[in-house]
C-alpha cells in the first residue's frame, strides 16, 4: 500500500476548518496544523490510484490553495511488479 506525506496550504484563517474536513476523508490522517496555515497529512490507500484521488479530494476542499507532496513510498506496490498492478498503458 502506497503512503505519502503531503502539505496542504490553506487560505488564511481556514486551516482549522480544512483540518476538520480532511479528518473525515477515509485514508487521510491529519498530523498537525502549523502556525503558517498549512496542514500536514499522511495519505494511505490500497493503490496509488486511490491515493491520488484522496489528494485531489483534499485539493478540492473549500479553503485549500494547493496540495504538495513531500514524500511518497510505494515499495510494496513495486514488489507486486509493474507500475501499480493496474497500469494499462
Amino acid at each position, binding site marked *: *500500500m502506497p*503512503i*505519502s*506525506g*503531503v*502539505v496542504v*496550504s490553506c487560505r*488564511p484563517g481556514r486551516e482549522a476548518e480544512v483540518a476538520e474536513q480532511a479528518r473525515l476523508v477515509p485514508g487521510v*490522517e491529519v*498530523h*498537525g496544523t*502549523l502556525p*503558517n*496555515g*498549512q496542514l*500536514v*497529512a*499522511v495519505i*494511505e490507500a490500497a493503490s*496509488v*490510484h486511490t*491515493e*491520488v*484521488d484522496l*489528494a*485531489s479530494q483534499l485539493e478540492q476542499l473549500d479553503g485549500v*490553495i*494547493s*496540495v*504538495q*507532496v*513531500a*514524500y*511518497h*513510498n*510505494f*515499495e510494496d506496490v*513495486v514488489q507486486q511488479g*509493474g*507500475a*501499480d498492478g*493496474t*497500469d*494499462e*498503458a
Partner: protein
Amino acid sequence: MELTRRDFLKASAAAAAFAAAGAPGLAPRLASAADDKGIKWGKAPCRYCGVGCCVLVGVKDGKIVATKGDPAGPVNKGLNCIKGYFLSKALYGKDRLTHPLIRKGNKMVKASWDEALNLIASKYKEAIAKTGPDSVAIYGSGQWTVFEGYTASKLFKGGIGTNNIEPNARLCMASAVAGFMSTFNSDEPMGCYDDLDLGDTYILWGANMAEAHPVLFSRLIDNKLKNKKVKIIDIATRKTRTTQMADEYIPMYPQGDLAAVNAIIHVILRDKLYDEAFVKQHVNFKRGTENQPYGLKDKENAKEEPKPLTFDEYKTLMKPMTPEWAEKLSGIPAKKIEQLAHIYGDKSRKVNSLWTMGVNQHVRGTWVNNLIYNIHLLTGKICKPGENPLSLTGQPSACGTAREVGTFSHRLPADMVVMNEAHRKKTAEIWGIDPKKISPKPGLHTVEMFRAIDRGELKCIWIQCTNPFQSMPNLSRYRKAAQARKAFIVVSDIYPTKSTEVADVILPSASWVEKEGVFGNTERRTQQWFKMVEPPGEAKEDTWQLIEFAKRIGHGGLFPYSQKNFYKEMWEEYRKFTVGTGKDLAPYETYFKVRGLRWPVKSNGQETRWRYTEVDDRYVKKGEGVKFYKGVGGKANVWFRPYEPPAESPDKEYPFWYCTGRLLEHWHTATMTGRVPELRRAMPGATLEIHPEDAARLGIKNRDKVKVSSRRGSLVLTAEINGRGKPEKGNVFTTFFDETKLINDLCIDAFDPISKEPDFKKCAVKIEKA
C-alpha cells in the same frame, strides 16, 4: 505496542511533510529511525518541466520505490507538485521499449543493436554520399541531457558537417531566446526564482502558472500570504486556476499583448514614469524590420535589418500607440492600460513580469519578449533582487541543453552562432577539428525540417527524446509525408508514441536516473545526477546510441573520452566554451553534492543569482552598478516593435479563436504521464473548453460531442463548459497531450520570422454539434 514497517513509513511521510512545511520539530520521533531502512537515496532534478525541482529518489533492490521533495533543494524546498508524485512510476509502464525494432513492410521486427545501428549508418552514409550532408538531420529536445545534446551537436555540426540539428524547444521558447539575444546579446534571465519571494508585484502575461509551473506559483502564493503588499495580475485569454489566486484578472484578445504592452510603454513615456538616468546609461534604441512574412510558404525567409534610433525618435514613434488605440486591439480598457503603466512605473513597487508559451508561441513572439524587456529597461526595474522580467520555460533542460549547448540549427555552445567565423574557429579549436568542417549556413529550423521531409529533400532524420509526429502544427502534412516513407526515420524513445508509429527504426532509450546526466533549468541552475537504476532490457542511453553510430560513419574520433571518466571528460571539454564568457560553468565534481548552481559560477565556486549587477555578478566592477556587459557598449536594446496582426484571425466561416496548451496533470505529449493511470483518470482525454454563452448560442451542452474544424483539419471533442479553465467569449481551448485526438492537425504552421517558433495559440476554427 509493536511497530510495523508501515508505522515507520507513515512516520517518515509525516516527518518529511513537517520538515518541508518548516516545522521539523513537530515530526513524529519514529521517523529518524525508519527512513533509510533498505532504501538508498540519490539526488536528481525532476524529469518533467523546466522548473527543475530537486527530488530525492529512493532505490531498493534495483528499483525505484520512493521519492521525496529534496529538503536541501532551493527550488522547491522539499515539495513536489502532482507530477512529482508519479515521477518514478513513469519509467515502469508495461509497454517500455526494451529492444531495437526495424521496419519490415508494415511490421516492426526485433533486431540487435548491431543490425539497427549498421542500418542507420548505411542509410545516412548513402544519403550524405548522394545528396550531401544537408540531406540528413537530427531532431532532439529540451529533455536531452547536456551530454546528449552536446554529443549530437558535435557529431552533426563538427563531424557530418551539417547544421541540421534542432530541438523541440524551437516549438517552445525559441522566441524567448531571440528576445534575450536581440535585447541583451546573451541568452537567459538576469533574475532568478528568488525574485518570486522578494518582489511585491507580479504581472503574468498569458501564463497559467498554477498549472504549468505549480511549484513556482506556490512560492509566489507563499510570498503573497506573508506580505499584504503582494499583488498578482493575471492578463490572459482564459480564466484558469491561476486566476483564482490572482488579485486581478484582465481578459485580453489573442495577439492583444502586442498592442497592450506598446500602450503601457506609451503611457510610461507620456507620463515620464521612466528612469531617465538608467535609460541614458544602459540603453540603446533600435528599430527592426517590419511586415515580415509568417512563413506559411515553404522556404519563405525573413531578414532582420536593425536601424539605430535616438530616444527622441523612439518617443515619436511610440506616440500613436495610445491606450485607446490598444483598447480596440487588445480588448483591455484604456483606463486599465493606464493603471498597468502606473503600476509598472510605481517607484515604491518591485515589479516582475512573468510569461511563457502565450508570449513565445506567437507569430510576433520575439517582439513581445522585446517589448516586455522595454518596460523593465525604461523603468529601470531590472537586475535588482525582487524586480525582474522572468521568461519561464517548459522542459527540464531547454535552458541547459537546447540553449546553452546550442542544439539549434544556427547556434553553437555559449551563445555562439555558426554564421560567425570567430565562433566557428573557437568551436573547432575545442573540438579539435578543421574550422572549415562547420558550415557557416544555418541548418533547417524545425518547421522547415519537417517540410523538407515532405518535399523529399531530407532523406534521413533521427528523433530523440521527443514526439514531433504529435506535436508539430499543421500535423497531418508531416504525418502523411512520414507515412509515405519520404524519409528514413529513426526514433529513440522509452515508450511507443505517435512518432515511433511512423519510424523505420525504433531504439529503446534509458531515461532519467537510468543514466548519468545534467539538466539546466529556467533560472540558470545546472543540476547533475548519477545513474541509480539499470534501464530495462536492452535499452541504452542516447549518448551511447549516437557515439556507436558515429563510429560506424567514421566520426568515432570525435568522442575520445575514457570509459571510466566519460562524463567528466566530456563535461570539462564542454565547460571550456563557457569559462570567461559570463556563462561560466563549474568543474564537474562541484555539482555532485550541491543542488545545482546558477551560472556564471564565480572563481570561488559561488553561484550568481542576479546577472549584470555589481551586487552579485563578478563581471560587473564595483561602482559600475548595472552593466549589460554582453551588449554593444555595455548596453541593452530597447526595440521599437509595432502591432501586427496574427497569421489567421476568425472570420464568418471560422468564427472562433483556437488555442492549445497543457494541464497540471499532463506533460508535453503525455508519453510519460499518459502511462500513469492516475493521471489519465484525473483528466482522461482532450476536451474543448468553450464559453457558456457561445455554447448556448450553438445549442451545445456540457459534455456534448462537438466537431471542431479549421482550414487544415477537423476532429470531434467533448465540450467542457465552466470546467477548470474558462475561455473568454469567441475563444476555445484544448490540450495537446491526448494521442487519440491529434489536435495539432488544426493548428496553422505560421511562425515568428525571427525565432521561427510556430504560433500554437491562435488560428481560426468553427464549432458544430457533432
